[in-house]
């Protein structure tokens, strides 16, 4: 399956956080690597979208949008640090 990046889920994340999140730095709770949300490895063809760490491949966020409701699980980030 083809991997995209965090730009592909920027609209739904903006919806959840009320601001653009692509320039926010996230720290992976699995390996400690820090990357911008735009740089996540994102698979959009799962039931929902899955964002993985570009360094270790660990799952960092899962996002599901149904009609006007977006559910987001991002607990595998140790830290989210806006620009």
């Amino acid at each position, binding site marked *: 399956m083809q991997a*995209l*990046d965090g730009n592909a889920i920027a*609209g739904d994340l903006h919806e959840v956080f009320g601001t653009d999140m692509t320039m926010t730095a996230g720290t992976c709770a699995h390996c400690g690597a820090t990357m911008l949300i*735009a740089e996540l490895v994102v698979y959009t063809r799962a039931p929902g979208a899955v964002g993985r760490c570009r360094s270790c491949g660990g799952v960092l966020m899962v996002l599901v949008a149904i009609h006007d409701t977006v559910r987001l699980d991002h607990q595998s980030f140790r830290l989210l640090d806006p620009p």
Partner: protein
Amino acid sequence: MARAALPGRLKWLQGSVVEVIDETQRTKSIVLELPGWPGHRAGQHVDVRLTAEDGYQAQRSYSIASAPEDGYLVLTVEELDDGEVSPYLAGELRAGDELELRGPIGGYFVWEQSLGGPLLLIAGGSGIVPLRAILRHRAATDGTVPVRLLYSSRSLDEVIYHAELTRLGTDDGVDISFTLTRDWPQDWQGHRGRIDRRLLEEIAWPPDQQPLVYVCGPSGLVEATANTLVQIGHPPGRVKTERFGPTGT
């Protein structure tokens, strides 16, 4: 009960199609009039939402092809064989039709004059779309930042904006290079073959000039190009990437 609007929340807007322009056999530009559009920065995208009669909705992201200074918002859409949204946008949509979208989205894959340069833009297939917005923005604001574009397509008839890019390439400080990977005319003067280290070393600004790099296209091309640029010595933080779904390069 009405839901309170969150600060900065994106609104779904209703646009109307002013014109549909054939760019290539599989690619169309959709020119939109969009009341309430807050304006955008070059490189940003929108989410387009289609709603079927039974309420089923499909949503996709498309890069904005127009500069912030252009009068209309333009999306350039490539029709994908197994696409759910693009066949409608590139095949069915006509002037006068309505289209629902939200944006502008993204702040990472964005360029404006204050970010400086020199600029190195690298595109595969329809990955040219946000880079065209950047080039148009640079031209519209009388920019003097030197820019080099390397654009990979399968064949000459799949090159999007060929005439416009060729014309922009005559501007001061703008250097446009095409590479064709599958077919080329006998008298083709451009490059042949996929973007590789040799081609990047020939065209890219050397790392000591600290170019700001934007790479956009299908995942394979973006991955390979970004990795090669880092191997050549460009700092990863100066190489911005945006990956598309399937498209021809």
